[in-house]
Each structure stands twice: as C-alpha cells, then as structure tokens.
C-alpha cells in the first residue's frame, strides 16, 4: 500500500494516504490538543486548537482537516503554537460563564483539561458575562448555554450518527447558539429521539443529564466512536 512520507517535528514518518495530519500524528504517538474533534464524527476545524505549522505555508493549519502530503514538514509544538492555543482557550473561557467549582462536569471537562494541559495561566481578555439561559425543558437532559463552546459535536452526532438533526446553530458571531429544532425549547423539539448521544459527546458541562449536581456529569465520549464503528465497520467490540 502506498504511503505518504513526511516530516513530523523533525522526524520522518509515514501516513496512510488520505490521513489527516491529526490522524497521522496520533498513529505516530504525537499528541495534538483538540476540542471540537471527536472520534466517530466528521471534522470541521471549528475550535482551532489543533493548529500546526507547515513549512512553506505562512498560515497555521488545523491538523484535523489538513490532509498529509508527500514530503510536507509539520511542526505540532512551538512557542508560537503554544501561545495561540492558550489564547484560544482564554477566549473560550472569557466568552461565556464557565464556573468550574459548581459545574456538573467539574473534573470531567475537556475544556478544563485542555486549559490545564496547555498551561493556560490566566485569562487576558475581559469576561463577557453574557446573560444566557439554561434549558431543562427536556424530560431527561438539559443544556446550559453558559458552558457551551460551540464545538458543534452535538449537532454532528445528532445529524451523522442518530440521523435526527435536532441540533443546529443559530445566530452569528457572539450571538451564535446551538438550538433544538426551530429554536424551540428542547422539551418541545419533536425530532429529538432522547437517545442521549449529544450528552455523551459534549466536551463540557453544557449538555447534561438532569439532576446532576457539581462534578457528577461524566460523559462517555468513546461511546460515540463505538456506535460509529458498529455502524460502518460492523464491529461491536469497544
């Protein structure tokens, strides 16, 4: 089988054709931080956390949607990248109201973990303190927009795996929000099958099982990959 050979952080590595930089890096044991990416779902490059440097390109490229090419030179870690990643995380924290100590996902939150892993020391940007609602009209689940980072994993899992497409994004810029059906309360969204895949996919405490108190919301994010594999590859072993 033909492979692409390229340079990853100064070392020659190979990748299967069509593999993204992110996939090739993982195959070679190199970690690139991600947030909007979830195995089993399509990639959209929304969060920009996986930005990498590619020799010859003045712009940073998101590893999750950049295909490997023969002879490319990729750098996944540099002071410049670390700075950008920290800035992205700071902006995410400043944009909405993330209050870790009382959050249902405290200790099980990907945003929190990325902030720690990437040495996000403080937030340079003014907190926006937007006034956002919590929707717990659904019988079993709730969405707290204060904690949403607009990664759209919920939108993709609902569309691509469940096939219901209950979730979508409305609004522009800082006014963007995930919505259910035609921007109706979740409890009134007739397309929702109550499958709970969006709950498992959510990286933060934004989508949660109702009744959760602080730190109780553990997402089983690998369930999404399991279902995707079961469907596409007819494999049922986790």
């Amino acid at each position, binding site marked *: 089988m033909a492979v692409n050979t390229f340079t990853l952080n100064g070392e020659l590595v190979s990748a299967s054709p069509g593999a993204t930089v992110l996939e090739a890096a993982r195959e070679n044991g190199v970690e690139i931080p991600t947030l909007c990416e979830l195995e089993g779902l399509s990639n959209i490059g929304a969060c920009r956390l996986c930005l990498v440097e590619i020799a010859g390109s003045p712009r940073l490229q998101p590893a999750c949607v950049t295909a490997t090419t023969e002879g490319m030179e990729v750098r996944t870690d540099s002071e410049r990248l670390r700075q950008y990643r920290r800035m992205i995380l700071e902006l995410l924290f400043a944009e909405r109201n993330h209050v870790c100590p*009382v959050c249902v996902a*405290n200790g099980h939150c990907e945003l929190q973990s990325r902030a720690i892993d990437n040495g996000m020391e403080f937030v340079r940007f003014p907190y926006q303190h937007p006034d956002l609602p*919590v929707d*717990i*009209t659904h019988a079993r689940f709730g969405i707290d927009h204060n904690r949403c980072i607009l990664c759209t994993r919920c939108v993709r899992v609902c569309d691509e795996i469940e096939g219901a497409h209950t979730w979508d994004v409305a609004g522009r810029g800082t006014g963007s929000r995930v919505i259910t059906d035609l921007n109706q309360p979740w*409890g009134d969204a007739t397309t929702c099958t109550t499958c709970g895949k969006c709950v498992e996919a959510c990286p933060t405490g934004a989508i949660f099982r109702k*009744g959760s108190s602080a*730190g109780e919301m553990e997402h089983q994010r690998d369930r999404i990959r399991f279902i995707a594999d079961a469907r596409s590859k007819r494999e049922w072993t986790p």
Partner: protein
Amino acid sequence: MSSESNAGNARPGRTVTIDPVTRLEGHAKITLHLDNEGRVADARFHITEFRGFEKFCEGRPLWEMPGITARICGICPVSHLLASAKAGDRILAVAIPRSAEKLRRLMNLGQILQSHALSFFHLSAPDLLLGMDSDPASRNVFGLMNAEPELARSGIRLRQFGQEIIEALGGNKIHPSWAVPGGVREPLNSEAGERLKARLPEALETVNGALDLFRKIASRFEEEANALGDFPSLFMGLVAEDGSWEHYDGKIRFVDADGTVVGDGLDPGDYRSFIGEATENWSYLKFPYYKPRGYPDGIYRVGPLARLNICERMGTPRADEAWAEFRKNGGGRPVSSSFHYHHARLVEMLAAVERIGILLDDPELVSEPFRAEAGINRLTGVGVSEAPRGTLFHDYTVDRHGILQKVNLIIATGQNNLAMNRTVLQAAQHYIRGSTIPEGLLNRIEAGVRAFDPCLSCSTHAFGQMPMRVALFGPEGERLDERTRD
C-alpha cells in the same frame, strides 16, 4: 460605614457609634443613641444582608443549589447545604431514604460540634476564664493559652473532629454538593467510620472538661448574666415529634418568656404564615418577628439558647442531665439571659458527641439506597435546618422544569438581630455613665454580641473581623470623643 450614619436622623441627643472597620462595603456596626439626659435610648446592630446572593442563584437548576449555597459561608457551609437540599426534597416531593436522612444528620452534628468548639474555646473562653474586666490586650485566646494551653489545644482537636466528620462525608472540593435534592451522593465509608469512632472518647472528655470548667466559673458572672441580654423574648426552633432536642427536621415551636408554648407543630414550609419580616430605614437587614405578636413585640431568639428552651429533653443520657442543670438557670422558666448561650453551646456539644456515637453504630447508615429520584413535582419548597446559630430557611420557587425563579434565605444571625439590639441596649444602659465611653462598655458590648456568636462572614471573609471604632456625638452632631480598638 461612616460614623456620622445618624446624621440624617432627626433624633435629638448624642450618638455613640461603634463601627467595625471592614474592608468591603458590607459591615456590622453598632450605634447607640443617647437621649438628652445621657441615657441610652436605643441600640442598633447593623448587619450586611443577603440580597445579592439570592439574585445570583436565580436562573440556576435546582440540583446545583446545594453546591452553590454551601459556598456562602466558610463557618457553616453544612447548614446551607442541608437547608438547600431539603428545599429540593420538597420540590421533588419525595421522602428521602432513611439512610440519607441519618447521614445528613451526622454531618449536621459534625457541623454543630466544630462551630460551637470554635465559638466556645477560642472566642468565649477568654472572656469567661480571664474575666471581662481584664486587660483586652491579654483577654483573648493568647491570654487563654498562657493560662490554659491544653484547653486551647483540646478545643482545636474538638473542632477538627467535627470537621473530619464533614470531610469524611462530603469529601474534598471536587464534590461540594454531597447532599442533593432527594438524598445524599455517598454514604460514609466504613474505614472513616471506624476512625471517627476512635476519636469519640477524647471528644467526650473535652466537652465534659469544658462543662466542669464552666460550672466552676459561672458564679463569677452573675452581674454579666443579668446585664447581658437578660430580657423577655420568645424562643424559636425545631423540636422533634416527641418534644426532644432537634437539629435537622421536626416542627417549629415558639415558647414565650414564661415557658408557655405559644406556637407548636408549625410546618417550616409555612413560615410566612407565622414569621413576619419588618424593615427599618436604617438597616438593609430584615427584622423577622413572630406574626401573632406583631412587630416588635414578636421578638424571638434562635440558636442554642432557644433550642434548649423549647425542648423537653435532649434525648441522650449525658446531655439530658446537662440540660436539666442548664434549665435550673431559668428557675422553672426558660433561661432568658443571652449570657447562657455559652452554656447552651456546651450542652449541645455534649448532645452532638453522644448522637454522633449512636449514628456511627447504626447499620442503616450504610444501607442503600441513598438518593430518591424524582422530577419537579412542586414549584415551591422550603428547606429548614438548625444551623449552629439557629434556624435557617431556604425558600425556593422554580419553574416547572426546575429553574430557580426566586430565592429567599432567612439566616439565624438575621433572626437574632432584634435580640442583639436589645442585648447591646441593655449592656449600654447598665454601663454607660456620662458622655465618655468606658472601656468596660466596649468589653460588655463585644461580649454581649459574642454570646450570639453572630456569623458575619457570609458575604466576604473580611466580615468576620470586628475591630471597633467608637465615636461619641453631641446633640448638634459634633464629635465629642472617639475610641478605636483594632
């Protein structure tokens, strides 16, 4: 926070302002109003209020409230945790599992123990053991340590024991909300249970030692007992179905100064029907009163003194004896002097230690389930618990999905507000002669307020500090005298 706070008041006469200098906008200051004859006519004890916090909670899901409210106060987090979870129980309309109730009780006993230990051994004991007229420079916990170092150390260990109970149940900071609407999240693990049991004998010994000490010195304080908030008032608190001491559940009882039960079997959930909340233009704080008696005649006290005055027994052998001895101070009627709050705290510590021992041996403590599951079945719910300082109410209104629409908290220190004013007034009337401020008065006011162990740390940690600034104003508002104590 200015000493001229009375400037807008047209009252003739002088004003003595005892003004704790705190670093934030909240404050607790004491003002005394003198009439033209130089007699103390009125006393006002000002405390910061809670409004901001209540607004802060609105819009949150019900299930998150225990975790949020437990963070109001570093001194009595458990009281808020339990009152909040109980308000949630009511909104879910569930009877929580028996094991969960017992576990919550265990935690509340740990809380009462740690809070009373701090109050008695470190705040009150210096006044009591060293005498209230001793030099303030040494009449403090340091003077106490020089005189009784082992007492101070055992007090610390007792407080740690209470804290350990709380931490054994509630865990570390990853899980601030151990009690949840419907029950609790985790039982006590058996290893922690054994560790706590092993510490019981020492705790008992410490409390008994403190009671012995108190007996020895109590006679020295007859003047204080008479001048420190000895006035008729109602007493309010929870009482168990069988009339014994209660700290977690039960019904509300009001007893008057003669010991007559004037209100009994009252559902805490109906508190609005029997507790009124008056407002005064000079204070942000509400003034709760017993409705049938009107305002301000419906003045009532809550906390250890009240709980011991309304109950018929403690319910455990050693505490029952100590309670009977305590009640002798009242000579057949409720004990009316606020000075006896100190004694009441000791009796409650004894009851707490005994009850902790009983609970730790209870097999039901570890029998599942620990949490009832339910949805929103009512739109309002009132949770109540006996905090170390008195009855605490959390009153929530939610929408049909469980989002908080309205939050009302009635805290113990607020309910004792009127009584603290009376206590300060009484001390001032007893000790003020002329237009200067005697050092002894400051000591008495401080001790008078301290008897209630008011917790002013609810808003920021700085509120606990009470350095005092005392200013004396003439009839025209001119400053005659000023004293500061850090």
